[in-house]
């Protein structure tokens, strides 16, 4: 066995050849991705605990599925999803403030600002001002909000805009669901969100985060001296994928990091315990385990570590434009000092993400120049290879 090619040997069906850059730069390919991927599969749009009370709602734009979705908790406690489109003349019912809009309605209704049509959290059209001036062909019963399929897993809310999804969320997630089951996502619910729009294809952004080969160069500033021992425990599960990232952590933290780590342990560069990892994560309990890096196809990266988890999401806006959202979660602070320590961890993480995103727009421009039509991947970039192959399978299905 060639230790340098262990993932090729574990997954020979993926092959080892170069990967075409065309899917990253072609508007036609992107149109197919919208139709064959984003309008067909389950997409993670948030967490149930973002909507703690009846009448809480969240509106999320899904440009790649040509819609925006209202996710709302009803008085019965159920969370449902609807297209944000009024049955009257198509105005958005909830006025959006950017990519994500949170709101609360004690009465558990949403009201269109245009002409005041009122919808319940079950989607039913409850009230139409001057209803008697509409004609006999208008039936209030048939003009509720258009529903979108919604299912949840471990507190994550997924929607599927297909009229009839090809599978249930559980079938879609398959073994992935088991791999992460039991991590205390809900207990670590203090979440920071950063977002930006990147002038690059969504897969350029995905790829930049889906390997640890870049740590020694890109993060030489924020995470120095973390000599990488590479990936461990690569597992491909249908269209999804995961691995462990192992880093040799610097024994002596910097002065302020030392104080922060002692108070909250909220940073990726503080020492990692293993009290909350599910049994399938870092199964050998390696001491240099840093975090699990996984991808829920198509556009969600989920990472877990002791006391921390974080996600990246890549929402396509065009073939060369992507909304990136990074969310970082820790246990809610109990004291002012803990809140301070979390601020330090978050600042360090923000800076690392600023380093991560630095290459993406350059990569896109270079790909669009067509100077190179292929890219070469090494063995520890197997998550990228798998991603490219899965996208191709969906697009050509």
């Amino acid at each position, binding site marked *: 066995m060639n230790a340098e090619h262990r993932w090729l040997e574990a997954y020979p069906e993926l092959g080892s050849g170069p990967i075409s850059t065309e899917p990253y730069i072609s508007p036609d390919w992107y149109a197919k991705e919208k139709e064959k991927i984003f309008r067909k599969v389950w997409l993670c749009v948030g967490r149930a605990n973002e909507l703690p009370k009846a009448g809480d709602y*969240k509106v999320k734009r899904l440009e790649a599925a040509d819609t925006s979705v209202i996710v709302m908790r009803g008085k019965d406690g159920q969370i449902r999803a609807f297209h944000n489109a009024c049955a009257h003349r198509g105005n958005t019912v909830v006025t959006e403030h950017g990519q994500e809009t949170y709101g609360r309605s004690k009465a558990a209704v949403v009201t269109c600002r245009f002409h005041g049509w009122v919808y319940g959290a079950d989607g039913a059209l409850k009230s139409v001002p001057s209803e008697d001036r509409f004609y006999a062909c208008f039936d209030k019963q048939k003009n509720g909000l258009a529903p979108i399929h919604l299912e949840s897993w471990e507190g994550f809310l997924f929607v599927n805009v297909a009229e009839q999804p090809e599978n249930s969320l559980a079938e879609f997630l398959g073994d992935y669901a088991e791999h992460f089951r039991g991590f205390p996502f809900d207990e670590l619910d203090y979440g920071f*969100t950063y977002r930006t729009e990147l002038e690059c294809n969504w897969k350029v952004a995905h790829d930049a985060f889906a390997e640890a080969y870049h740590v020694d160069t890109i993060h030489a500033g924020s995470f120095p001296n973390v000599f990488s021992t590479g990936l461990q425990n690569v597992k491909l599960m249908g269209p999804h994928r995961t691995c462990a990232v192992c880093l040799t952590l610097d024994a002596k933290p910097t*002065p*302020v990091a030392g104080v922060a780590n002692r*108070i909250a342990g909220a940073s990726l560069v503080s020492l990692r315990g293993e009290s909350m990892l599910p049994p399938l994560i870092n199964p050998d309990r390696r001491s240099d385990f840093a975090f699990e890096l996984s991808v829920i196809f198509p556009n969600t990266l989920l990472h877990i570590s002791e006391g921390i988890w974080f996600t990246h999401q890549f929402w396509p806006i065009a073939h060369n434009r992507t909304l990136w959202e990074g969310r970082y979660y820790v246990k809610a602070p109990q004291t002012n000092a803990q809140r301070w320590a979390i601020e330090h961890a978050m600042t360090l993480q923000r800076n690392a993400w600023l380093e991560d995103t630095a290459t993406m727009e350059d990569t896109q421009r270079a790909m669009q120049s067509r100077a190179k039509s292929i890219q070469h991947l090494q063995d520890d970039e197997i998550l990228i290879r798998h991603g490219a192959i899965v996208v191709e399978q969906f697009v050509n299905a």
Partner: protein
Amino acid sequence: MTNQPNLPPAFADLAPFLDWALPTADERQQRRLAATSEGLRAFYDAVLPRLEDILSALDEYPLGALPEELRPLYGIALSLAEVAPHIELYGGAVGVPYAFEEGRFIAVHGGQPTWQGLQPMGFQ
């Protein structure tokens, strides 16, 4: 007229750094980007030796209930969290070296007064 921020007597030596006593993450980031290398270094060197004492003083009050007179001190401690990587890791650079444009990153929590301890994601 607005009240000038002030510090408790035990921390009066940090008065020259009251312009770092900023309540929100966005303001602290802007202040750091507008600083010089020398300014970052002077702030770091002055506050680091007082950090543990500052945090102890702040922890005499529950999170979210910090009295107004201690909020500038908290702002200074939070500015140290913002500045520290630039001294400890980036050789005094005021920006993150080899990075994406900071101004294009939106922090959802960026406008919240940090001392309130609110959920940073934007929902309540």
